[in-house]
């Protein structure tokens, strides 16, 4: 049996190398694809080899970036973490990371595994790698495609929690009433809440009016909203309210290029200067810090790990090309689009934007979800806006309704990027907001040009 598994591992790695060499799949059939589909047990066996165990991040947004922060913290602590950095949230990527890290004898060098899984795969994830920690980032309703929506997800997750043991830890974003409302307090694993607390973080968000208490279905009342439907809340119907977090950020100074804040932890406060802007990055950093605290990592190491972490690919990455900056922001649902815009708007000057949208469906392209984002905030606050990619014309109509003047519509994403960069004055920044496929293509091209290492 061991021989067969090693053979499968070797075939899988060879297939991937061949596909890469001939560019059959443009890097989209990575190692592990065969294993994941034909023999998932091999991936599970590899995961069980991780000497110090696994940490699973799940939720709609932030699972990849939180894992990215944690991986850097663990590296600073002298460990060798394995991380699913592509951010697909799939079982295939889980298998990929493990197969890629294994030698042909089936041995892994990594000691920790940090895996991001989409919310509908949490049960399989927990069964596959028996994680030490399960960290739940958020359940933005506009990014859930699970039957029954957010309530369907939390009902499914109850089965996962019921199977967890007291030795496992559940990290939960206290600021998300949809997420926290789905819990029964007596579930076996240890629950640690994390969050953000700052009176300055008050935004208006349309989504909050649709959030209801999981227990009595009364609309949730918010004292403040920090991001999407996250914030400080309470149910006036049954009295249920936001749980008190034990790891949380305060004194937040979110700038256009970096953020400063203090994380309160049971091991003492950490003053952090994050090179990645935006409140979502702060939530991700706090989630990673909470996980690191649960793993017993020294607070000074946690701080260093957060501060030295580069952005995940396409998630707040800044590239300098010919004295101009390209700020790459992945957009995949209304919340990530809203927050990308909010991050860009933190700069004092009107910004320059390029929207690269490419979401194919049969016979066409579907960008319906951009109508749920609050792009009206960009109105009268832009210096230039270009749209490109196969969804460019849909985006142009959306921006017209948002009161945003479009400078140009270009079909080809690569051409549009270079055109928009040329029209960005030296020393200034172009915000490139791109959907997953468009971001992948752009980064591939920039890597080929040597702009990305």
């Amino acid at each position, binding site marked *: 049996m061991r021989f067969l598994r090693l053979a499968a591992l070797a075939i899988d790695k060879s297939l991937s190398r061949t596909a890469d060499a001939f560019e059959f799949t443009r890097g989209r059939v990575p190692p592990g694809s065969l294993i994941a589909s034909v023999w998932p047990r091999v991936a599970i066996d590899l995961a069980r080899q991780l000497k110090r165990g696994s940490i699973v991040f799940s939720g709609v947004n932030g699972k990849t970036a939180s894992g990215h922060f944690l991986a850097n913290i663990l590296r600073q602590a002298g460990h060798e973490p394995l991380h699913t950095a592509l951010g697909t949230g799939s079982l295939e990527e889980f298998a990929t990371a493990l197969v890629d890290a294994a030698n042909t004898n089936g041995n892994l060098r990594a000691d920790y595994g940090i895996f991001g899984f989409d919310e509908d795969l949490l049960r399989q994830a927990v069964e596959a790698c028996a994680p030490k920690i399960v960290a739940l980032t958020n359940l933005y*309703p*506009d990014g859930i495609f699970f*039957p*029954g*929506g957010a*309530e*369907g997800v939390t009902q499914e997750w109850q089965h996962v929690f019921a199977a967890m043991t007291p030795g496992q830890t559940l990290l939960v974003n206290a600021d998300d009433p949809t997420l926290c409302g789905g819990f029964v307090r007596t579930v076996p694993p240890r629950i640690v809440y994390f969050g953000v607390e700052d009176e300055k973080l008050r935004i208006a968000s349309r*989504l909050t*009016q*649709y959030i*209801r208490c999981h227990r009595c279905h009364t609309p949730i009342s918010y004292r403040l909203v920090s991001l999407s439907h996250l914030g400080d809340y309470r149910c006036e119907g049954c009295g249920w309210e936001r749980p008190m977090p034990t790891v949380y950020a305060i004194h937040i100074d979110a700038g256009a290029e970096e953020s400063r804040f203090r994380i309160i932890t049971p091991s003492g406060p950490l003053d952090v200067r994050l090179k990645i802007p935006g409140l979502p990055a702060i939530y991700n950093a706090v989630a990673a810090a909470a996980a690191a605290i649960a793993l017993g990592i020294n607070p000074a190491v946690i701080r260093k790990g957060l501060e030295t972490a580069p952005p995940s690919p396409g998630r707040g990455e800044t590239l300098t090309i010919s004295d101009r900056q390209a700020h790459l922001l992945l957009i995949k649902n209304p919340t990530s689009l809203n927050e990308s815009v909010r991050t860009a708007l933190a700069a004092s000057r009107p910004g320059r934007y390029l929207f690269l949208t490419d979401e194919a*469906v*049969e*016979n*066409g*392209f*579907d*960008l*319906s*979800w*951009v*109508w*749920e984002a609050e792009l009206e905030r960009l109105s009268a606050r832009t210096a230039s806006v270009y749209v490109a990619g196969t969804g460019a*014309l*849909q985006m*142009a*109509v*959306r921006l*017209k*309704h948002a009161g945003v003047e*479009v400078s140009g*519509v270009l079909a080809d994403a690569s051409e549009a990027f270079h055109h928009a960069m040329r029209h960005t004055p030296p020393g200034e920044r172009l915000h490139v907001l791109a959907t997953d496929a468009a971001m992948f293509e752009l980064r591939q091209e920039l890597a080929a040009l040597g702009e990305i290492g």
Partner: protein
Amino acid sequence: MQDVVLHVGVLYPDQMPINGDYGNLTTVVNRCRWRNIETQTTDLSSGVSFDAETFDLMLFGGGEDWAIRATVAEDLQQTRARVLRETAIREVVIFATGGAYPLCGRYLETPEGKRIPGVGLLDVWTRESDAPMVGSIVVECGWLSPGVMTGIERHSGKTYLGRTATPLGRRILGHGNNGEDPTEGCRNRNVFGTNLQGPVLAYNPHLADYLVQLALQRRYAGYTLSRLDDAAEWRLHRQVTEGAR
């Protein structure tokens, strides 16, 4: 000059905030604003009561999620079926898209064979299938000018028309009501149901104007809408229709 106000009711905005449905409301509000027509919008979440005379235009959108639709269907039956039927009789314009379209019909049949009753505004019924019908769709509509509407469909329910039903149009690309006959959508007087989801009104300015004009006729007989610059919308429209050829 007379102040013109359009009263818009949005059914279950909290249950179904997906598929870009907010785009239809944005389009109606903006196209009115660009013409100095005031809009007053009311969210009609579960528990909010209204009477049949309140609104000129009602928007009802939503996805394909069976669990959510079952909850909405139950609330419709218990609290709103009667007032909606009365609203339709008074010729209020009701525009139901995506997952809301079958809820306006006679019933939806789940994969297990359970029938969820609709409110019966349209003589159609829907059966869930295991064939996802997703993609661009182009529909010929004789009552529109120009007579084509385009958009995105994303459904697995197959909808069939009853004897008294009139389709919205004939599909020339995409799956339409069921992928078997050439029909798409259904119209009964001022009640419109379509599989074209979310921002269908944004991508079809002539359809948006048709509905707004129809809705305004109730209070402002003979009122006609001024023309707008829809170059961006028609460019998108051409991209989809030319792709269909």
